[in-house]
């Protein structure tokens, strides 16, 4: 792989696609990497303030009159999940440190929740972003004590007399060891250790001593008066935790389908040795010779969020109706803060089915040209009220609640200027190389050219760009 192709692959995996300036001036990998890792942790995002939360907190709800009023108020609050969703999406588009957000997106799927509480969501997100490139142990401890996770995995109900095993099970199955490395007995014992872990109305961690079971526990072959922190520490001491995490990180950053077990083993060993230094692990991946191989280019299906962010980083666009960005996530099958379940998004081929593929292939025209896309995503939140399938409106002859894509205003200037000096006969191959991580055949390129608009140079660049972005290869990273 030449330096240009290496840069392309690096920015595809460590970010949301290569920027034009990096494409035009590829740099040695060490130099590029140095700029990808920030010196300080990112500042927190705040879409829902503490004052906002005061209006909706359990205490405020208690003070309200009727059940119906409470429901209405809760509904209003849940809608604000969209605010934090869009704020983070915007952060991914405009950040100078895409690797932070890309890695946080990985942890967002690893520590998946779906709680419909934007204030708690925001707290958890900021834990993930701050620790995204930090220490996994610190992150695990903070996540385990976050209101979002305590609520989502029912640890609020985990009490000495009535243990709830949900958190204890998932912390092992999904967050650390993976299936098959613990017994049902270990789950029971760990659940006892986590009794009393709860959060207050403000979303801050509290330890309810009276609900904690302080008896003797046997866990993973050890015996002691373990509390929750002890359990997390024991889990971090297991080499399997490093192996499990590394496998998952490898699939996310390197390849959906093919895992090279030898490379994973080496990476996991140094990850464990570094005491779970995430930045060090990623640097090891991004400097490895085996990473920069043809077989790695295109070995990932871009997730919907990567795709949506990628468009916007490629071409600056202003959405007059920000709801569009939210609807797009739904149509494509990945809504931030709404993971399908605690296991997160399965990713890879799972992103693609006939309808999502057609939407992906239509989108460049919808966003960048004049096509309409008259599709309605399923409203997957029954509590938000009427689903679009609930068709009273249709019955009365009114328009169904389909979401039309509100087209953004696209700023093509910089992009067109950058390609304006390129000789016309060189344009197709260069644009294809810039836009697509895996290559395409000469014949495919000729056919794409035959659909392009040759009228003016500008039309030609634009139409080629859109047509290339519609190819199946554009879906791969």
């Amino acid at each position: 792989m030449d330096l240009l192709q290496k840069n392309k692959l690096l920015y595809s995996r460590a970010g949301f696609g290569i920027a034009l300036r990096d494409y035009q001036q590829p740099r040695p990998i060490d130099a590029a990497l140095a700029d990808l890792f920030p010196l300080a942790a990112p500042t927190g995002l705040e879409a829902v303030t503490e004052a906002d939360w005061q209006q909706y907190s359990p205490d405020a709800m208690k003070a309200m009159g009727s059940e119906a009023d409470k429901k209405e108020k809760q509904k209003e609050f849940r809608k604000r999940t969209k605010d934090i969703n869009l704020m983070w999406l915007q952060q991914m588009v405009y950040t100078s440190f895409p690797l932070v957000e890309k890695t946080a997106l990985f942890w967002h799927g690893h520590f998946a929740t779906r709680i419909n509480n934007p204030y708690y969501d925001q707290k958890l997100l900021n834990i993930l972003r701050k620790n995204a490139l930090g220490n996994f142990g610190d992150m695990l401890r903070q996540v385990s004590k976050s209101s979002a996770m305590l609520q989502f995995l029912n640890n609020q109900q985990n009490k000495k007399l009535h243990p709830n095993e949900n958190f204890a099970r998932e912390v092992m199955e999904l967050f650390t060891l993976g299936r098959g490395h613990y017994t049902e007995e270990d789950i029971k014992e760990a659940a006892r250790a986590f009794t009393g872990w709860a959060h207050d109305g403000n979303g801050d961690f509290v330890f309810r001593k009276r609900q904690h079971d302080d008896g003797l526990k046997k866990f993973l072959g050890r015996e002691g008066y373990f509390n929750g922190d002890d359990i997390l520490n024991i889990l971090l001491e297991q080499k399997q935790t490093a192996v499990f995490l590394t496998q998952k990180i490898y699939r996310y950053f390197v390849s959906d389908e093919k895992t090279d077990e030898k490379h994973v083993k080496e990476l996991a060993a140094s990850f464990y040795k570094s005491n779970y230094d995430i930045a060090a692990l990623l640097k090891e991946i991004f400097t490895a010779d085996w990473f920069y191989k043809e077989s790695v280019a295109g070995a990932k299906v871009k997730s919907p969020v990567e795709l949506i962010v990628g468009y916007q980083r490629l071409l600056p666009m202003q959405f007059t109706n920000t709801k569009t960005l939210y609807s797009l996530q739904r149509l494509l099958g990945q809504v931030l803060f709404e993971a399908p379940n605690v296991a997160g998004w399965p990713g890879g081929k799972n992103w693609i089915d006939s309808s999502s593929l057609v939407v992906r292939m239509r989108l460049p025209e919808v966003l960048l040209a004049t096509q309409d896309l008259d599709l309605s995503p399923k409203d997957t939140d029954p509590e938000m009220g009427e689903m679009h399938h609930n068709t009273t409106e249709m019955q009365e002859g009114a328009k169904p609640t389909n979401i039309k894509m509100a087209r953004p205003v696209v700023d093509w200037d910089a992009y067109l200027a950058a390609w304006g000096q390129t000789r016309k006969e060189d344009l197709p191959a260069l644009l294809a190389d810039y836009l697509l991580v895996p290559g395409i055949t000469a014949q495919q390129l000729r056919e794409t050219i035959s659909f392009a608009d040759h009228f003016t140079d500008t039309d030609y660049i634009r139409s080629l760009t859109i047509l290339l972005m519609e190819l199946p290869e554009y879906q791969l990273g």
Partner: protein
Amino acid sequence: MPISRRKFIQVGSLASASLMLPQFLRGFQYQAPAQRSNHKILVVIQLSGGNDGLNTVVPYRNDIYYKSRPTLALPADKILTLTDDTGLNPALKGLKQQYDDGHLSIINGVGYPDPNRSHFRSMDIWQTGSTASEMLTTGWLGRYLDTRSAGQQHNALAIEVDDTLSLALKGDERSALAVQNIETFHAAATTPYFKKIASHADEHEEKLAGYLYKTLAETTSASDYLYQINKVKATGQTYPTTGIGKRLKTIGALINANAETQVYYVSHGSFDTHVGQADRQTRLFTQLDDALTPFIADLKANGKFEDVLIMTFSEFGRRVEQNASNGTDHGTAGSMFMIGGSLKKPGLYNPLPNLSMLDAGDLEHSIDFKQVYTTVLEKWLQADGKAVLGRRYTGLDFI
């Protein structure tokens, strides 16, 4: 205007796609496929949001029912009587007729051990066919497609009439087609450019790109197939213009045209009746019943009713006691309707759950929904239930 003046984008637009169609149809006269022998069809209707089972199939002689629901319980003189102690929600008049005709089997107390009361999780469990503690990434019907279509070329073995695909219909290697409106989808999926791209599907052997190209090729060909077959058979029935009405009309047209599709999937809702349950459930049931009636008549008129099994389900039932807002909160087990012309055991398949044996205010399930799936897979779709569900569940004998 020189040809190059034409904005390239029109090539892919809906307008030009539809302009292309007459010529396309002139190109070859489409013949309806012949009647298929032994072609069994499953129509799944998902009642999203958690339908209240007790006000669907009503224990109208039960004191606990009336005590638990002072304002929500359906009075005995309002319900549609099925047996001496069980009746149907008054909005389900068409279904009552099916019951009387021996074309409705009601399976009660369907749920699963360790029930989850979150919409998302419980719907996940129902759609993937998992246990409460498993997290599967494929759906039960998707895995059925995987077993079915190894090495075979299919146009549209399963269709969800919607714009996006539910997990239930996603397999490892193969998924159903999600199509809300056949003509719109055809226009979007079969632009000349897409067809050109799809024609290269065979050249891609790399795993992921190959998968994308294969999906694209199948989508364009299935979309062509549906577009043509959809025009074959005009319905003699009048369907309501509600969402569920339009969807069942689409399904009726395809079934009656002898499409090769075996599984159809639609959703209707939301049945999440925390507040003011009576009005909403009545409205949704009326819409469902009004859509099912012409659908069934359509199937009968075309001699298809014996080959069709319609199945309803919801992610959970609701609590026995009503709440303070004239609604009900998330509960556990519920009833499933099986409708069709070939039922072996029509009527009430089993009794309603015992209201005096509640689990913390919730109904205890007596039948695992995976037993129902097993029955449908093995006795209707001729598939191996264990291969699809991962375990052997005892089947039932309603078909």
